Every structure is written in structure tokens, then in C-alpha cells.
């Protein structure tokens, strides 16, 4: 059993930073243009039942991660086959997030620097954090969360002179279709990605309900997400938000107050790096736990370095250019992630509930 512990507060911060990840900087589902903020609200509503499923799984199997749960529910052979899915998914997700940072720095901030370099450094940092354990990740998130919130708050104050409420109109000009489509995108990228926290929260030390931790994280993210998306639209307008790759960065770069406070977009880049680091570390942690449970290793730390390097190299060879990345992230990813985020957890929960109620499975103490 995992002896490392994180508190419920650290859990909430970790969850929120993970969800902010790279998504807010790439713009939450830009297809809905000026209606993205409605899509963010609808996406949060769509995520409520699936988050309930994740929390229910955690509350049924206290102190166990997704790989233990798969083993208990499906048995040894089928459980290990299903575990492969939950090893591949965080590995791929982590690589996608690393690549987001690489593309961001390569296209916007440091075009002359080879893309591999910042990706490698982010990879090393995550390897270091995961080697130190999930406790360190929890403490990191406790320090980073206020920094991210303060930067968001200050930039929000500074963009007030640039807000143009006419950008919100017309509301739902193209009907409800694009809004629902975008809501589905937001649901899968980032909200339902919290399926990985079934593994992280096995280390959660709390007397409070696990539901409360999960839902607090979701609502804090929803508040930040809706606020920032609304801000993007009010400053840039729906068409530009849908057209640029990193709308938040473009938006903040417009701030120029009294020819003195300007070029502060680097503050947004800082939050991008911070949240990316947390997200990659969580993905790496889950992948390493998965591999170590699959092969019955003594400690997941034996393979952190190699898995981290694999993640960085996968990120490097993944796409040929940024357009491929945007296409995969916004057109393909939602459908690709559906089995990992919705179908498998629902199947696991249904079988677990049936087996527990018929007395075939004993799960021990519950939350």
C-alpha cells in the first residue's frame, strides 16, 4: 500500500492546476467562438456525473489506485490488459502536454531555440518531482496555486480597460450545435482527464468526503475557466479567439497602461509552465505506478527516469507541425479519449457495484 500521503487541500490544488494545464492557454474549444463561455458552463455540467463515477470508485476502494481496482474487479489477466490502457493514456497525455509547451515556446516565445530543449528540461523537472514522490507534488501545488491565481487576478484587473461587451453578441448565432460540440471538447480536454486522479488520490489522507475534494477542484476550475474564457472573448472577440493558437497570451500582450505596464505576457507564460509541469508530473506519476504494478516492481521510482525520457521523446516525434497538433487536440482527441475517460470507468463501476452487492468482492473500509 502507498505510504505517501497528500492532504485534501493539496489534492484540490493539484486537481485544479492539473485541469488548468495547457488547456486554458490553447483556448478552451475555440470552435464555438464567442459562445465558448457558455460551452465551458455546459461542459462543467456534463462533467458532474462522470466526476461522480470517479469519486464513487475511490470511495468504494479506499486507498487503492485504478490499477488495483482493475485487478480486483476484472481479475488478474483481464485487469492487466485493461491496465495497459491506463498506462498508455497518461503517457500519451503527458507527451501531448510537453509538446504543447514545446510548440508554444517555439512559435511564440523563443522561435530560435530547438523545440527539444525546453521539452527536455520540463521532462527533467517532472522526473525529479516524481522521483521525490506524490507528497512533493502536493506541496508544489500548494505553493504554485496562489501564484497562478494572483497572476490571473492581476492580469484580469489590467485588461479591464480593454473589455468590449459588444464582442459577446450575437449569442448563439449558429444555434446550439457548435456550443454542445465545444462543451464536449471541454468535457474531454481537461475535465474528464481527472480520471488519472483515481490513482493520485489513492494517496489522499482525508476525513472529508472524496466527493467534496473532486467537486471543489471541478468548481474552482470552472470558475477560473469561465472567467478567463469570457475575458478572452471580451478583449479579443470570438473570431480572433477562434483563430489564434494561444489566445490568452495574445490577449495579455495587448495590455499597455500608460506606456509603462506593458509586455507582461511573460507572466502568463510563467503560469503556463507551472501548470504544464504539474500536469506532466501527474501523468508521469500515473504511468510509472501503472508500469510498476503491471510488472510487480518493488518501487515505481526504478523506472521514472526512463518513462520520463520516453514521454519527452514521444512528444518530440508525435506531430510534424503545430497544425497537426491543433487538429488532433480539437478534432480527434475528444473521441480518442472517450474509452479511457467514460466507457472503461463506467464498466468498472457497474461490475464493481454488482460484485460488491452480491458479496463477491470485499473492499474494506470506505470513505
Amino acid at each position, binding site marked *: 500500500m502507498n505510504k505517501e500521503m497528500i492532504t485534501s487541500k493539496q489534492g484540490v490544488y493539484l486537481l485544479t492546476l492539473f485541469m488548468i494545464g495547457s488547456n486554458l492557454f490553447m483556448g478552451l474549444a475555440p470552435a464555438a467562438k464567442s459562445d465558448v463561455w457558455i460551452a465551458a458552463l455546459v461542459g462543467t455540467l456534463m462533467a458532474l456525473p462522470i466526476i461522480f463515477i470517479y469519486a464513487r470508485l475511490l470511495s468504494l476502494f479506499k486507498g487503492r489506485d485504478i490499477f488495483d481496482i482493475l485487478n480486483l474487479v476484472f481479475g488478474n489477466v483481464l485487469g492487466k490488459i485493461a491496465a495497459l490502457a491506463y498506462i498508455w493514456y497518461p503517457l500519451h497525455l503527458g507527451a501531448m502536454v510537453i509538446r504543447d509547451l514545446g510548440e508554444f515556446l517555439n512559435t511564440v516565445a523563443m522561435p530560435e531555440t530547438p523545440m527539444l530543449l525546453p521539452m527536455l528540461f520540463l521532462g527533467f523537472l517532472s522526473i525529479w518531482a516524481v522521483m521525490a514522490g506524490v507528497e512533493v507534488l502536493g506541496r508544489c501545488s500548494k505553493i504554485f496555486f496562489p501564484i497562478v491565481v494572483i497572476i490571473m487576478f492581476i492580469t484580469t484587473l489590467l485588461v479591464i480597460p480593454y473589455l468590449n461587451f459588444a464582442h459577446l453578441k450575437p449569442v448563439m448565432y449558429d444555434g446550439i450545435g457548435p456550443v454542445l460540440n465545444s462543451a464536449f471538447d471541454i468535457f474531454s480536454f481537461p475535465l474528464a482527464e481527472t480520471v488519472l486522479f483515481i490513482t493520485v488520490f489513492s494517496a489522499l489522507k482525508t476525513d472529508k468526503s472524496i466527493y467534496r475534494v473532486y467537486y471543489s477542484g471541478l468548481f474552482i476550475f470552472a470558475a477560473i475557466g469561465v472567467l478567463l474564457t469570457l475575458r478572452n472573448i471580451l478583449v479579443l472577440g470570438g473570431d480572433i479567439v477562434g483563430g489564434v493558437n494561444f489566445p490568452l497570451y495574445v490577449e495579455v500582450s495587448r495590455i499597455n497602461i500608460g506606456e509603462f505596464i506593458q509586455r507582461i505576457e511573460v507572466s502568463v507564460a510563467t503560469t503556463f509552465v507551472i501548470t504544464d509541469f504539474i500536469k506532466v508530473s501527474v501523468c508521469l506519476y500515473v504511468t510509472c505506478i501503472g508500469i510498476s504494478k503491471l510488472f510487480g516492481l518493488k518501487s515505481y521510482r526504478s523506472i521514472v527516469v526512463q518513462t520520463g525520457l520516453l514521454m519527452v521523446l514521444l512528444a518530440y516525434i508525435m506531430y510534424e507541425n503545430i497544425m497537426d497538433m491543433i487538429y*488532433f487536440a480539437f478534432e480527434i482527441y475528444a473521441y480518442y479519449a472517450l474509452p479511457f475517460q467514460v466507457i472503461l470507468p463506467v464498466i468498472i463501476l457497474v461490475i464493481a457495484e454488482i460484485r460488491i452487492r452480491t458479496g463477491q468482492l470485499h473492499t474494506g473500509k470506505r470513505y
Partner: protein
Amino acid sequence: MVVLVSLSYTLIIYLDSIPLYRKKLWRDFGINMALTLLTFTIAFLISLDVAVPSPVYPIQRLIITILGK
């Protein structure tokens, strides 16, 4: 580039894999070496400027086929 990759991997194996061998954690050592071999192959090919096939494009094609887009 090739020399750099080889040197870094020598260092990684010395710092990361050899201690597992010394502690006689055979299973951990085996998986570690398998992963090292995999990442070294990819890194080596990248350093030689060989286009390593990405796993994303087959996934993309599969999903497009399933969805019929």
C-alpha cells in the same frame, strides 16, 4: 549529437540502472533496461535525423475510419 546521446545514456545507466543491479532488484533492473533500450533507440534515431514514425497518425486514421468523417 550521436556522441552526446551515447554519453548521456552512459551516465543515465550508471546513475539509474546500476544501483538497481547492485541492490539485486532483478525485475526492476530488467524493466529499467528494457525501457532504456527503447528510449535509447528512439533518441539515437532522432540524433541521426531519421524520421521516427509517430503513433499518433495511425490512431488518427483509426478514429477517422470509425467515425466516418
